[in-house]
């Protein structure tokens, strides 16, 4: 790799770490400076004074704020996220347990969204000016503008409550125990539970790739070499797929890595509507219950996922963009 690219990467990684540090600090102080006594939810009023003090010591809340912060940072670096007030057990275990669920949902939705989006974009570009295109674009704009939870509610009513085709909540059927993660991933039951939440998210997310692909295609289709191809008698289909689409696809691929970051908001809401046991649901519940360590941990993990995906996107872009390579070589 060229040196400047390496420098660039190192710079980006450093920047990501900076972002994470700011997030962590901001959250830490925000929670502790918010109004209300955090321990209200956790101290039974019948406790004696000593019991309450003991509990505060246990939570580490008896030390001054700055000390708490340093302890927290120190722990964080070692991968220790503290103990949840609510569950009284390590936050890291709790969030890592639900992280896979969120990732499965997010990736599935993204794959579906981008798959459908890309194909749809090609289709709409091909059928430019037709009613299909108009309807398609309108439909896409509609799904991008509608609140995800609302779409989710409607899907839930129609497909789960009325038609009964899909389960209405959770990731597994009652009483199912999987021997391993792989078993879960290959089970029909799990995917059945994922259909509705993933569809809801995908409906929202497909707008970007579809419109982007369509507009890229439209540009590319005006290029000279496409016109040449037509003169040379290549079929429309071949032109579409083999020539136009390939070139139009690149930015969409890189955009997909970023899609994770930007879909994180949608995750939170969809997880709540469908009772999907993921990070978003855990975050909302932790915040509502004033469980600061857990809320911080969940938020932090979401931020890590987002920052990582942004980083990957940058790397992908740096590697894939021919201009970078070309520009570098021209200079050396």
């Amino acid at each position, binding site marked *: 790799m060229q040196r400047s690219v390496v420098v660039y990467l190192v710079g980006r990684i450093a920047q990501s770490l900076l972002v994470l540090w700011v997030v962590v600090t901001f959250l830490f102080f925000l929670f502790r400076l918010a109004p209300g006594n955090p321990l209200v939810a956790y101290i039974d009023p019948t406790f004696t004074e000593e019991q309450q003090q003991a509990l505060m010591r246990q939570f580490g809340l008896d030390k001054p704020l700055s000390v708490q912060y340093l302890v927290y940072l120190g722990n964080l670096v070692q991968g220790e996220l503290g103990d949840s007030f609510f569950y009284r057990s390590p936050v890291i275990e709790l969030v890592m347990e639900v992280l896979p669920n969120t990732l499965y949902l997010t990736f599935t939705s993204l794959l579906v969204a981008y798959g459908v989006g890309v194909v749809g974009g090609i289709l709409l570009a091909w059928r430019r000016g037709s009613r299909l295109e108009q309807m398609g674009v309108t439909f896409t704009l509609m799904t991008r503008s509608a609140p995800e939870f609302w779409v989710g509610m409607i899907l839930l009513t129609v497909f789960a409550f009325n038609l009964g085709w899909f389960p209405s909540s959770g990731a597994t059927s009652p009483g199912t125990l999987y021997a391993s993660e792989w078993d879960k991933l290959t089970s029909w039951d799990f995917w059945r539970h994922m259909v509705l939440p993933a569809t809801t998210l995908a409906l929202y997310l497909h707008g970007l790739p579809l419109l982007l692909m369509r507009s890229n295609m439209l*540009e590319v289709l005006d290029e000279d070499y496409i016109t040449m191809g037509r003169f040379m008698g290549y079929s429309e289909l071949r032109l579409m797929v083999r020539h136009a689409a390939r070139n139009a696809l690149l930015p969409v691929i890189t955009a997909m890595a970023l899609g994770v970051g930007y879909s994180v908001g949608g995750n939170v809401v969809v997880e709540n509507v469908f009772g999907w046991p993921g990070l978003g649901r855990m975050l909302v519940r932790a915040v509502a219950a004033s469980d600061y360590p857990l809320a911080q941990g969940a938020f932090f993990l979401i931020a890590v996922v987002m920052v990582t995906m942004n980083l990957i996107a940058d790397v992908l872009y740096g590697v894939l963009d021919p201009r970078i390579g070309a520009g570098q070589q021209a200079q050396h």
Partner: protein
Amino acid sequence: MSVQSASLTPAAQEPRPVSGLAQFVQMNLEVFRRDRMALVGACIYLFFVLVALLAPWIAPYSPLEVIQENGIWLANEPPSPRFYLGTTNLGRDIFSQLVYGSRTALLVGFSAAVAVALIGTVVGLVAGYYGGWVDTLLMRLADIAFGVPFLPLVIVLVALLEPSIWNIVLAMALLLWRDTGRVIRSQVLTVKERAFVAAARISGAGDLRILFLHIAPSILPLSFLYGSLAIGWAILTEASVSFLGFGDPDVVSWGFMLQDAFVSQAMSRGAYYWIVPPGLCIMLSVMAGFFIGRGYEEILFPRLRRS
């Protein structure tokens, strides 16, 4: 896409020059004349603004008023001439709520849009013009804003501070300026090399004067563009936050209506008259924002080839 099109050069990107108030107005009108969808968007906004301003006259009841007869609340009434969209689980008129909800939506939308556009523009202007450590600092801030997951932060802020719509606007203002800021900064970087700016400098104009009187006006259409998109994001965000239960309990908004419906088992009751209208209104107002934005973009960055 810019990555692909080698034909993209700055010159090819030159938008229509606009000068003078009359031409400005004409440009605005042309946005809507040219792009039918932008016109539709503007009409939708206008409609909602009118509804919001005339709410006390349009809505037959107060939005939180419980309608009762002989001590019994008229709850879960289906749509009728008396209650156009029926009543909620606690005897409130849904139509009135929808009408008053438009006020909240527009208030949140415009406030957030103004905040986002304002902050983003100022940041972009200052960072682009002054450069150096100011630039670096501001862009670092923008990096950080990019790295923070948006909705989770809004939830955390709103839950910890009071649940009020202004806290929602605050949370949005804290993060959403990042796109605007970066783009405007890039613009400023190119604009400040222009001849007329050098001329102004030579003639002794101070920095602030140049910044706000010469450079800013060229940047503003871009701010408006982002602002119009921000309206949509703001309305959606407020709805999501209300839906999750962190919304302002004293304020009737479309998100509040959906949450109320959800919590009162409207789905099981088949109360589509309650579930559908608020969502539809949200959808329309966000779409309107997209359409208008697209219309502006057509004018500001006209396509080279009519494809």
